[in-house]
């Protein structure tokens, strides 16, 4: 149990998807705690505010692409400039319903992103990534 990653951060502007995905994560018992953020800005703010509290920082981020104001790619631009204390222990995967070839290519090319997951979130797929990377 001690190897189980503790915290996952969900960043998504879609309330329904936040609800569905946090429920799926809770039911599949893959994380101990879920941090819910309704925008990229909210996510960044949380990370910055808790830079000195390692125990509150996420081990994993599931990031949506299509969001108003700051989209997933913009979030990643800010994210990579954050302190190493935050980014070193945290992995980012994109979770999106996109079928846009450009979006998919950009996500795959981004060095911060370990994987592009397609909605709906499949617990088995998520588990496979966690087993591989964490």
């Amino acid at each position, binding site marked *: 149990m001690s190897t189980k990653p503790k915290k996952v951060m969900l960043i998504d502007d879609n309330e329904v998807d936040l609800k*569905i995905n946090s429920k799926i994560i809770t039911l599949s018992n893959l994380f101990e705690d879920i941090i819910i953020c309704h925008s990229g800005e909210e996510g960044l703010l949380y990370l910055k505010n808790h830079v000195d509290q390692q125990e509150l920082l996420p081990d994993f981020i599931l990031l949506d692409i299509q969001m108003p104001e700051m989209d997933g790619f913009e979030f990643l631009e800010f994210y990579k400039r954050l302190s190493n204390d935050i980014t070193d222990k945290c992995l980012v995967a994109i979770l999106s319903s996109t*079928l846009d070839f450009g979006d998919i290519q950009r996500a795959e090319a981004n060095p911060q992103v370990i994987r592009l997951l397609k*909605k709906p979130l499949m617990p088995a797929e998520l588990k496979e990534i966690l087993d591989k990377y964490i």
Partner: protein
Amino acid sequence: MNATTIRVLYIDDEENNLHAFKASFRRQYEIYTALSAVEGLKILENVPVQVIIADQKMPNTTGVEFFKSIKNTFPDPTRILLTGYTDIEALADAINHGDIYRYITKPWNDLELHNSIKNAYDAYKSKIDLRNKVAELEKTNDELNRFIYSISHELRAPLVSTMGIVNLVKMENLYHSSGEYWPLIESCSNKLDYYIQKTLQYYKNNKIVSENTSIDFNMLIVDLIELYAYSDRDLQFNVNVRQDLPFFGDAFRIEVILGNLISNAIKYQKENENDKHVNIDIEVNSTQVGISINDNGMGILNEHLEKIFQQFFKSKINHGSGLGLFIVKEALNKISGKISVSSNPTDGTTFKITIPNVNQA
């Protein structure tokens, strides 16, 4: 007379010619005259002229030189050159560099010149109309692109949420709690999603410009099998890729082609077959890749073989969308690929494809 009067600019250093021209045509056209290129340019800068007539033999600037000088600044008006003598060199120059529409010898014949001006104006109008049409098409195209982008996001996002809810229902063991309703919602959602995906594929295949990149077939096939066979673990894949050389091709379309064929091979298996298998053989050489995808699935009736690549062709037994193989064929057409199929209900189906290796040496 036309509702719109044609605006004509006539440049000639001989004032008599200008007068004669005005006398002949002032009832038909809105006429502007200039005694030199410099004067002509001034008029051009202030009046949207549609037809320009210039005399070749003028001091300082010849007609051809004048036309050359306004080639970029005033490209739209149609040009007519007037010459009193046949100077082959000036003519060649005019045609090659001055963008001249007509050449007329002096002294002019009124009827001939009149017809030339009319035709010149028509040429001007078609040029402008064409440009407006192009702008209009670009706008429509732009809107269509945005529409397609919104299909892939806005329209699909709520559907994907629904699919997520169905997954949750399964995880909470409620899937069979309301009779058939949840399975029905699931199958409708999946069908709608499939149509959205195929529509996008079809559209993108028509739109996207071919971009050739290096393709590793081993990796591609592994990815595609993982993508499509996720839910079907009792199906055996035998993959044999012989690629010792780099292959360059259109990654998007090749993925679409192989993706559709592999997903078909998975979808149309015999239900009570114990040894379900799909054999994929790929051989790359310097000129092309040969791909064979063979399954022992339900096969295709002989009388249907001719029609399977047609849009919306569906057989009565198998509930496909009638889009998958159509898209395969369309995508192959775009990259000069070929496909053949052999099939029968006993042994299953074999698709054979060849796609040229676009070496970028």
